[in-house]
């Protein structure tokens, strides 16, 4: 068969209406790829310039529906840096708990979305069933299941409800059991390994230059996690490890990226438990929060998908003058011709699924 371009998306089960991947194939082998974005562009940055600082947390919630708290937190952190607001200690602990719960939910969402890409519908339902547990947890203090609007500039919206710790502990225990149970169904399954091992490889040096961060970079064995390397909230006071995994000599494949995320979920459970143990009493909101700000500030946080960075410029009014969002997936998708070349058509969902694409944050 001669070389031909196949347009995967926007109406394709892998891209489900959000983006297009044009693939040049020779028979079943990929020769070239060209990703296209813009189907979900909402001009969030421009909209943010018209809204007051505190209103923008609703926009950041909607950057990624799978991981909305981490994005709102990144925004709140940068605006607090800009306004020089001191967040109370208890609010920082609550934020950390919410971030890790959100990371668990986000990774579960990813794992559930990854399984149908490999042709494993049951996996999707198993992981999404567990995600519901964490959505229930996130719903209890914030009052919403998907778009929480819980982390605000200067703290969190309200204190944790009564019995939240016991409820969390119960769910974490259940989830740990299930994670062990799933090992036989997924990572120890021979066919799952046949599909994911030695597929979608890139080395650590390549990944850094391509702008790939987060679990995808840690899948190459690079110990880089912004919770540790640009620490925020109370991650420096808590004992936890960066989860890395290496498939071969310095490269990552789909399986190592899968395993990094599974290990990270276990690590998140550890962090949440320790946070509950150390949590002090006190207020959950800073006493005085300015409305207007001047200057520029940025903070970067470890989003569920990689490095999230928000750069906020204020001109003295109550609205941001310029607000820039760095999405980790934006660069990772742009690099996809590099790690798709040479694999089969059947590998495209396996590879693109394994890097955990979220188009909401990418298209902004």
């Amino acid at each position, binding site marked *: 068969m001669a070389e031909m371009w196949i347009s995967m998306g926007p109406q394709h089960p892998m891209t489900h209406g959000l983006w297009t991947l044009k693939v040049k194939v020779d028979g079943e082998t990929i020769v070239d790829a060209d990703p296209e974005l813009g189907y979900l562009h909402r001009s969030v940055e421009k909209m943010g310039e018209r809204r007051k600082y505190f209103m923008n947390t609703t926009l950041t919630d909607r950057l990624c529906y799978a991981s909305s708290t981490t994005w709102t937190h990144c925004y709140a952190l940068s605006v607090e840096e800009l306004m020089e607001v001191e967040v109370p200690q208890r609010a920082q602990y609550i934020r950390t708990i919410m971030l890790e719960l959100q990371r668990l939910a986000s990774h579960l969402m990813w794992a559930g979305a990854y399984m149908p890409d490999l042709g494993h519908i049951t996996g999707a339902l198993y992981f999404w069933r567990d995600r519901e547990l964490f959505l229930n947890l996130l719903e209890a203090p914030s009052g919403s299941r998907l778009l929480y609007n819980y982390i605000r500039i200067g703290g969190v919206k309200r204190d944790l409800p009564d019995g939240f710790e016991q409820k969390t502990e119960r769910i974490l225990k259940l989830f740990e059991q299930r994670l062990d149970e799933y090992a036989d169904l997924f990572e120890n399954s021979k066919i799952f390994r046949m599909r994911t091992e030695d597929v979608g490889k890139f080395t650590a040096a390549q990944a850094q*230059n391509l702008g790939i961060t987060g679990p995808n970079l840690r899948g190459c064995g690079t110990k880089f996690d912004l919770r540790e390397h640009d620490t925020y909230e109370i991650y420096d006071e808590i004992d936890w490890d960066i989860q890395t995994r290496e498939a071969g000599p310095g490269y990552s494949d789909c399986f190592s990226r899968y395993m990094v995320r599974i290990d990270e979920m276990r690590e998140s459970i550890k962090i949440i438990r320790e946070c509950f143990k150390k949590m002090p009493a006190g207020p959950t909101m800073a006493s005085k929060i300015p409305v207007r700000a001047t200057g520029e500030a940025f903070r970067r946080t470890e989003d569920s998908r990689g490095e999230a960075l928000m750069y906020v410029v204020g001109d003295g009014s109550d609205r941001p003058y310029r607000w820039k969002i760095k999405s980790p997936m934006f660069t990772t998708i742009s690099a996809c011709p590099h790690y798709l070349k040479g694999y089969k058509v059947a590998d495209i969902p396996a590879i693109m699924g394994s890097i955990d694409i979220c188009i909401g944050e990418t298209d902004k």
Partner: protein
Amino acid sequence: MEIKAFMKEVSSVKGVTKVGLVRNNVVKCNLDKEGSKDFFVKLKDDFGFEHCSLITAIDNQPQFELVYHFSAINGSVFVKDSSAAVMAEIHIFLDRDTPTVESISDLWFGANWHEREAFDLMGIYFIGHPDLRRVLLPEGFAGHPLRKDYVYEIHEEEW
């Protein structure tokens, strides 16, 4: 290289002004538009900033400002007694009439789409970019919407 030594070395480079610390691990400096590429080559090869985090374009009215964020992932530049990864924040100011700057996407591939986005939304032209097309907006879109002088209609539904 310790961050203080890094700051000293950076300030000795031609075209770099106002070197300062934003936080304990973030170095900020201004850079002249001419010869910026030489500095970026030095930043990548000599100082080991492997990762281009972000390129932001700001419309400061009248001039444009480009803000580059680079990150040293492998710890070639470090802060003493801290695990913090060092970032470099570099500001380049451009005239409104000639919003052009040399592309760095051949040094960092990760900068490729950031430059495309800056071109798309702010109208900055990157010389030497391999594929300077719009990335978020459709082809044939008129204007660059993040510029402050971009005229747009606010549609508010009456009810």
